[in-house]
């Protein structure tokens, strides 16, 4: 991986992290009307995966999807404005934190139904194949979603039809209060790939270099028409399931331990060690991300709410 890529990955991770922390504050201050599911601690996955994607590649994502959207190219201000229910948000305030779309950058939707985006990404891959392109589709989903029927049916279909879809399972060890070992009797979800007839790999999702490398292979396979891949990224959900979740079902020690494996700390140390950046360049990058996020928050703040009547636009209401 060249130095520019290394630095770009760090930059993406920082932008995602800062945006999420900003939303946590905005939620506390009552500027976000509904508790959001934040992505802190999982940034290496969005960054490492999306770095391989072109503008015309597509993703589907989850209730925890802000980071995926940013990494795929959605301007932070469009995301924050949507999550704070403003007219200038990426969906005009109709979607909100769990329903973010921006087709022009390949964000084909984050969903509130667990597993709901997996078949959609599969169909996006089908279209890409039928249209004779070398585009790829990516579906992000959690360890919890991997036990839903939508996962099984989609992976079989994609393998059967050799679709250019990459399935990214972010195993953050929890699905709400249910720890993965209480929902899933196998140690690695990655091994399920072989059951469907596709490569299935498990990587450390807090190490962006590992994520990046696994995705490199998967994307090449997808673009070459060889079919889908399942990548499991092991990570940890640092915050509660949603803002305000006390998460008493796990210990403080466990969370503190996980914080020591912070993906940004890891990558920063790596880049300082190999001379790609210095402490000063890191500070500058961090400040730049802060500034972008502060501007985005100010944009959202200054934006109007949508008109009430606009609720009925596109609704299918026959009246």
């Amino acid at each position, binding site marked *: 991986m060249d130095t520019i890529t290394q630095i770009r990955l760090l930059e993406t991770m920082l932008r995602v992290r800062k945006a999420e922390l900003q939303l946590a504050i905005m939620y506390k201050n009552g500027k976000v009307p509904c508790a959001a599911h934040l992505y802190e601690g999982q940034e290496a996955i969005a960054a490492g995966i999306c770095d391989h994607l072109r503008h015309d590649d597509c993703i589907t994502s989850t209730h925890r999807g802000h980071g995926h959207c940013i990494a795929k190219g959605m301007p932070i201000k469009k995301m924050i404005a949507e999550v704070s229910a403003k007219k200038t948000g990426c969906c005009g305030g109709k*979607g909100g934190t*769990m*329903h973010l779309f921006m087709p022009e950058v390949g964000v084909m939707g984050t969903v509130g139904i667990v597993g*709901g985006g997996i078949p959609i990404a599969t169909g996006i891959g089908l279209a890409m194949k039928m249209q004779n392109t070398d585009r790829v589709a990516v579906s992000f989903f959690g360890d919890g979603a991997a036990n839903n*029927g939508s996962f099984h049916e989609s992976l079989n279909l994609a393998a059967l039809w050799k679709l250019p879809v990459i399935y990214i399972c972010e195993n953050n060890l929890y*699905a709400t209060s249910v720890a993965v070992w*209480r929902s899933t009797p196998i140690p690695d979800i990655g091994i399920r790939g072989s059951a469907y007839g596709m490569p299935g790999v498990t990587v450390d999702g807090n190490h962006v270099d590992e994520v990046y490398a696994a995705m490199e292979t998967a994307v090449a396979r997808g673009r070459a028409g060889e079919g889908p891949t399942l990548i499991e990224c092991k990570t940890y959900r640092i915050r509660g399931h949603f803002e305000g979740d006390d998460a008493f079902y796990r210990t403080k020690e466990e969370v503190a331990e996980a914080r020591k494996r912070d993906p940004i700390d890891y990558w920063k140390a790596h880049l300082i060690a190999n001379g790609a950046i210095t402490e000063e360049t890191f500070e500058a990058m961090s400040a730049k991300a802060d500034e972008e996020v502060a501007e985005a928050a100010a944009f959202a703040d200054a934006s109007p709410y*949508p008109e009430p009547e606009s609720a*009925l636009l596109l609704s299918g209401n026959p009246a």
Partner: protein
Amino acid sequence: MARRIRFVEALREGMRQEMERDPSVFVMGEGVGPHGSCFKQTENFTNLFGIDRSRDTPISELAIAGAAAGAAMMGMRPIADLMWIDFSMLAMDQICNQAAKLPYISNGQVKTPVVYRMTTGKSKSNAAHHSGSFYSWFINTPGLKVVVPSTPYDAKGLIISAIRDDGPVIYLEHKLLLNNRGEVPEEPYEIPLGVADIKREGTDLTVVATGAMTVFTMTAAQKLEKEGVSIEIIDPRTLMPYDKDTILASVRKTGRLLAVDEGYRYCGFGSEMVAMTAENAWDALKQPPRQLTTMHTTIPFSPPMEDYVFPNPDRIADAVRSMMQS
């Protein structure tokens, strides 16, 4: 009867007492174990009954719903928690094609006494995938009963009846009502399924309302009272089968019907009330029967839009006023 507890506590107490009484009753669903469910509906159950009888599941709605039906056929009495009514759509085949139909197609040789519990309705900016009121989907499935309590008292009595019922029952918990308080007896009691409750007596107009709409209509009724309009509020409590007699008796008395329904107006519970009243009490009606429903739209996220599409006490009062004027 002085004890006042919250809706969610009443529901929990009803389930707990049934689990104490009958070892075949158990709960399963996402997060019903040690965490005690999203809204604490099964708080402390794993301490009382163990993780087998308050059983966490993977996020597998189809399997939860179907496994509950299968276990029920074998003599268990599962309470399957599907969290949000919106997620029940992933389980529709097992609820509507299997649990609902197996007793009929087997000619009565098997029974499926499952309670499918889910939260329903509007909350605060829960948006497109977490705000549904799809009970009419279930009303439209022969073989299912559909229960929507609006008070803590009803929540307890109806969950007990639902558990004891020998067929599948959809039990809906409105998110806006979970923390409401009301008087609830400590001992177990049943509220028969299919029996309405007159939540407020009145003379000028009958409102049939369910779930949170019952509470909204109570608020509207107080305003209207000051304006000299007296409305009678009927909460059917069970939407299938519903209490035709009580509703018709009220409409015959007042001569006016307004159905307030958080579901949609087309082929919904509200339109059923209008149709049923027109069919059976035409002669007694002073006014065409009307319905006030959620607008026919996916539920938007942003508060101004969200507020725009749902019935609220002011809109209910306006609808009543317009029916009284003309």
